[in-house]
Structure formats: structure tokens, C-alpha cells
């Protein structure tokens, strides 16, 4: 299992030691300094090994929070975060966070306790088939059967999680393995993975297609971020002058306001981006996967365009849309060597610019109430380049994507693939731990915040200076919007008007909090929010009937966008 890239760490003084101690030493040897976890019966030997080990442990208040927080480390740094949980319910509570990491290709190492091998398969207390339950949502997984395997398994887990198309790796540790005595030493470094061969001929054909194209567009996705290729892509866009649009996960690859950026495409995308994609004759797809929320009706998506597709995962190429040229590759080095020379596309550039000017975002909602898009725009602009907005899921998530200013891709963390409510608070917590100098803001709706509100206790316990904003429309807003538009206004189980007073709830957790509900309170509220030195909670009351515009109805083409009435 080991390779020459691995080397034993300096021999610990404690040899021989237990499997549990070896787990901790192996994590430290991989450069891990913080783990997010929750103890329980089958992982107790590992917890016994934590005090005095030098490994910092953050006790979240629910295992789902541990998984989201650990994945946030991966989202921010590209290095796998680590979560720890016990067997049975501890492991099943991790599942949503692991699935979220899988869907968004985020590196994560999840370590779960398991009942001892002698009782595995007997329906022992808190025994569940964690390996089987998580199989469809991990990049890889292990049940460790020998304590001597721990160093190689942990090293390999990190390598797999972080390399290629990143993803979560599960390590299931039976209790007897944790308690076993071993002389194995932790391994530093990582196992080596075979690099992917680049098809040079495909690159030349891609360059030829770009040279022939009259209306080319870059289609930029989250794979760029996971590959650490943001700057390379920025250089390529600027060198070619080809207009570009982003997916939800690709926001920030080009900074907001970049002259070549048309905005986000898709269901709640910018009209300019959605119009341009329908007219393009070539899409240069980089690290994107033709997600249905991005493409709308697939048969009608970019009907005039050929496809050049760069992706680390060969199985994404031609999965949903045939690629005229597909390049399975490590995106960063390949794009560094990729030098397309488009023909004169000034007419196309002018057309794209015209669309951008014709369809700007609107902030002219009538009334006295707070208009969330305007608030979010002001928040991100006041926070500046250090802003990291962590969305939950729902209407506010789309408003953040549409209206916030992002200086880099890590400035926008969102549950894009899984769309998991409850994502924001623990993810923001993990992001703040990973990057303490960033202005990290958790932004949730009143539905989502209730799904992991217990993590306010974690903020208070560790005094993590996180900013928590709840945009409260007393509804499950996105579901309400769809019921209004597509279910004849039959509002079914979306009323949350019996929500608690969120500011009082936050204060009960020891977090200073305040509420605003009028438009003229926004600027002062944001100012107070951003200037707070410790954790702070801002409760924003908005109009329950507000909708997210524009909108491509499900099953429709991106060219058929529904828009707000003139009077909103």
C-alpha cells in the first residue's frame, strides 16, 4: 500500500503504542492541525489519545456540523479537512456532510469508530454498516482490519481525497483496532498517484476550433477552483478576450465586475449569460459538468455551439453533452500550455457587452421593507476583498450568487450539488477556522438556520469571531415561490411564521444579536455587524412574498426566462 513518496515520521517516543494513538500521529504527520468531531462509544480510544497530542479538536454539537465544518477546510484550502464520529448514529449523522462534499468534489477525510471486529455483523449496539451506507457518496473508503495498516490507510486517504477530482474518503476504525498495540510508525508525505496523460492532439484540435469560432464563450465551473487553476484561467480569459460565464461553483473564478464576465448562467442566472450561451457557436467548458440547474432543458441548451471540454474527470466529458473535443487533464498545467488564438471577435464582444448593459441587476424594489439583494450587495461591498459569504440553501442562496461581490472563488461557499439546508453555519465555522483573517459571514434563511442552529454553541465555546446573518421571511421561501408559480398558489407546509425570536435564541447561546426590519436600518446594521470583534448575529426581517428573479422554469430552455413585473 505504501509507495516511495511515503516516509516514516521521526520515531515517536511512545512506541509501541495503540492504534488510536497511531491514528492521531498519522493525522499530525499529514499536516492536520485541527479536527472537528463528536465523541461516542466506538471512537473513545481515539478521543483518549487526543489530549496532549498537539491535535486541536473542535467539538461541534452535531456530527453533521462536524462534516460540514471539516469540508469547509477543504473548500478554503484544497487540503482535506477531518471529521471524527462514533459508529451508528454518529456515522449516519455525518452522511449529509459527506454527500455534500462528494457532490461538490471537496476533499474530506471522515473517520468513524466501528464496533469491534468480533461483534461486527451481529447487530451490536450502535453497529451500522457505515462502509456500505456511505459507498455511493465517497470517492473511496476503508475498513481498517489491522492496526499496522493505519499509517498507510491514513496517508492514502489524504492522497485520494485531495488528488485528481477531489472528494470525501471514509476510514472506518473498529474499536479493537484502535485498542490494539502496534509498533508501526506514522507516515509523512503521501502515496503517489499516476498522472493523467494529456492528449496533445486534442489540445491542437481545441485551439483550431477556437480559432474558427465567431462567437466563443468560456463556461467556467468549480473544477477550476478544485484544481487551483483560478489564476491560469484568469490569464487565459484576458489573453483571448473571449467572454465568459460561470456556474454557481465557478463564481469568483473571475472577480465580480471583470470586463469579460457575463455572470452566472442557469435557472437563476443573469439574462446576459443565458442569452449569450444560446447564441454562442463554441463553448469552452472548463471544470464544469452541464448540471441541470445550469443548462435548463438540455436539448435546447446552447443549440448552435460546439463543445471543447476540459475536465480532470474523464467520465464527465460527453456525459450529458457531446464534446467535439474532450481533454481529460489536470486543468492547471494543461491550460498553462494552452494558447488559443481566436479570430477577430470584436462584434461578438460588443454584443455581449450590450446584453450586460441591457439587463443589469435591479435594486429598485418598492416599499419600506428590506430588499435582500440590495442588503447582500452592500454587505459584500463593505466587507471588501476579505469577504467570504457562506450561503445556506434557498432564495437567499440565489440572491447571494446574483448580487454579492466575490474577489475569489473561496469568497463564495455554497452547497451547489446537494443543496443541503443547514450547510451555512457549520461551513462558515470551518471556513473561519481555516482562514482566521477572512471576514466570514454565514448567511441563512429562517428555515436553514434551524437545521444546525446548535452550532451557535460551538461559536460561543471557542469564541470564533464569525458573523451570522439570518434573512427571515417566515417561510420556506424557495418552495413558496415554486408553489406560487408552478402549483397554482397552493401553499403547502411552507409557513414558518411561528419561528422563535432568532435574536433572543442567539443571545441565549451567548452570541450578541440584533434585529433589523426596515430599509433605513440596513447601512447602520451592516456597519455594526462588520465591526463586531467577536461572534455576532444579525437577524434581518424581509417581505415573505419576495421572489428570486430571473427564473428559468423547470424543463424550459434558458432562453425562456421569467422576470419580475415592472413594479416588482
Amino acid at each position: 500500500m505504501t509507495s516511495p513518496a511515503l516516509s516514516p515520521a521521526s520515531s515517536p517516543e511512545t512506541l509501541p503504542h495503540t492504534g488510536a494513538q497511531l491514528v492521531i500521529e498519522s493525522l499530525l504527520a499529514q499536516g492536520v492541525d485541527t479536527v472537528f468531531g463528536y465523541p461516542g462509544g466506538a471512537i473513545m480510544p481515539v478521543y483518549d489519545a487526543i489530549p496532549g497530542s498537539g491535535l486541536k479538536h473542535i467539538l461541534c454539537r452535531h456530527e453533521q456540523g462536524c462534516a460540514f465544518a471539516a469540508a469547509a477546510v477543504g473548500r478554503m484550502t484544497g487540503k482535506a479537512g477531518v471529521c471524527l464520529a462514533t459508529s451508528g448514529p454518529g456515522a449516519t449523522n455525518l452522511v449529509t456532510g459527506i454527500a455534500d462534499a462528494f457532490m461538490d468534489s471537496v476533499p474530506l477525510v471522515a473517520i468513524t469508530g466501528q464496533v469491534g471486529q468480533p461483534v461486527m455483523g451481529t447487530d451490536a449496539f450502535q453497529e451500522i454498516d457505515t462502509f456500505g451506507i456511505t459507498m455511493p457518496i465517497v470517492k473511496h473508503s476503508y475498513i481498517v482490519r489491522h492496526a499496522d495498516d493505519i499509517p498507510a490507510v491514513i496517508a492514502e486517504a489524504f492522497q485520494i481525497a485531495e488528488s485528481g477530482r477531489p472528494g470525501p474518503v471514509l476510514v472506518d476504525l473498529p474499536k479493537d483496532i484502535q485498542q490494539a498495540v502496534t509498533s508501526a510508525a506514522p507516515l509523512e508525505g503521501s502515496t503517489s498517484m499516476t498522472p493523467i496523460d494529456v492528449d496533445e492532439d486534442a489540445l491542437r484540435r481545441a485551439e483550431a476550433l477556437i480559432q474558427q469560432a465567431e462567437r466563443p464563450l468560456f463556461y467556467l465551473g468549480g473544477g477550476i477552483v478544485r484544481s487551483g487553476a483560478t489564476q491560469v484561467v484568469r490569464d487565459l480569459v484576458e489573453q483571448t478576450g473571449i467572454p465568459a460565464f460561470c456556474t454557481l461553483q465557478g463564481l469568483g473564478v473571475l472577480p465580480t465586475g471583470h470586463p469579460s464576465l457575463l455572470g452566472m448562467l442557469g435557472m437563476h442566472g443573469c439574462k446576459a449569460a443565458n442569452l449569450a450561451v444560446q447564441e454562442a457557436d463554441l463553448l469552452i467548458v472548463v471544470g464544469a459538468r452541464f448540471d441541470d440547474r445550469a443548462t435548463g432543458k438540455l436539448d435546447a441548451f446552447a443549440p448552435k455551439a460546439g463543445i471543447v471540454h476540459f475536465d480532470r474527470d474523464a467520465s464527465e466529458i460527453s456525459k450529458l453533452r457531446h464534446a467535439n473535443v474532450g481533454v481529460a487533464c489536470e486543468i492547471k498545467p494543461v491550460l498553462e500550455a494552452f494558447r488559443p488564438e481566436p479570430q477577430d471577435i470584436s462584434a461578438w464582444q460588443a454584443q455581449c457587452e450590450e446584453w450586460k448593459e441591457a439587463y443589469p441587476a435591479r435594486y429598485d424594489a418598492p416599499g419600506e421593507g428590506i430588499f435582500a439583494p440590495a442588503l447582500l450587495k452592500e454587505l459584500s461591498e463593505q466587507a471588501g476583498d476579505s469577504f467570504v459569504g457562506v450561503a445556506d440553501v434557498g432564495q437567499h442562496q440565489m440572491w447571494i450568487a446574483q448580487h454579492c461581490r466575490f474577489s475569489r472563488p473561496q469568497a463564495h461557499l455554497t452547497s451547489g450539488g446537494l443543496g443541503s439546508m443547514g450547510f451555512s453555519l457549520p461551513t462558515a465555522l470551518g471556513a473561519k477556522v481555516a482562514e482566521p483573517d477572512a471576514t466570514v459571514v454565514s448567511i441563512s434563511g429562517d428555515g436553514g438556520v434551524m437545521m444546525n442552529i446548535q452550532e451557535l454553541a460551538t461559536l460561543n465555546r471557542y469564541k470564533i469571531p464569525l458573523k451570522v446573518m439570518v434573512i427571515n421571511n417566515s417561510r420556506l421561501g424557495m418552495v413558496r415561490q415554486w408553489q406560487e408559480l408552478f402549483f397554482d398558489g397552493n401553499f403547502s407546509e411552507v409557513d414558518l411564521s411561528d419561528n422563535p425570536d432568532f435574536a433572543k435564541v442567539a443571545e441565549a447561546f451567548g452570541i450578541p444579536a440584533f434585529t433589523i426590519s426596515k430599509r433605513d436600518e440596513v447601512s447602520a446594521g451592516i456597519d455594526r455587524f462588520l465591526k463586531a470583534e467577536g461572534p455576532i448575529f444579525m437577524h434581518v426581517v424581509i417581505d415573505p412574498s419576495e421572489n428570486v428573479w430571473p427564473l428559468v422554469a423547470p424543463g424550459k430552455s434558458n432562453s425562456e426566462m421569467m422576470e419580475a413585473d415592472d413594479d416588482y
Partner: protein
Amino acid sequence: MTIETFTIECDNVNGTLRRIWTIIEQRGWYVRSLLVEEIEDGSITRVQVSPHGNNRSVETLRLQLERLINVRHVKLERRSRQKPSQWKEIPHAAVI
């Protein structure tokens, strides 16, 4: 009914066969028959699959199987047969 046949060479590691089965089912196909042969340093699996619906790319499934960590190589043996082979068919609900 379209039937595709893969030959999959993989490491003989705990869970690999289950992982292969999971991917096939997860990606919109079902396993019609399965034959596993142990070789010196791993195993070779021959599996016949059929799609749920008609819009599934067998090449995409091949690549999705090939990206599994302990899978070394996946070969599409023959395309679009109309009848299953004479291998013993494993009931759909069977667990490996």
C-alpha cells in the same frame, strides 16, 4: 433490451465488487449477470448490464467504473446484445 458486457480488472480488496455493483445501479443501469474470477494479484469481473431507459451512455458508465480507486481497467467487451449470456443470473436484490 440492450445488454452491455464489461470485463473489469481490479485489485482484490475488500469492497471492490460492492463498489462496482453500487456504481452500476447508481448510474441508471442494473446488473443482469455477474461472474468473478480470482487471478493471481486481483480479480476479473465480467458483468452484463442493461440501462433503465434509453438515454444512457455506456462509455460514460465505463469511465465511471474505471475511476474507482481499486479498479485497474474496464473493457467494454461487446455492445448491445439483445439476449443475456448463459451465466447464472443473480437476483436483483442480491447483495455481494
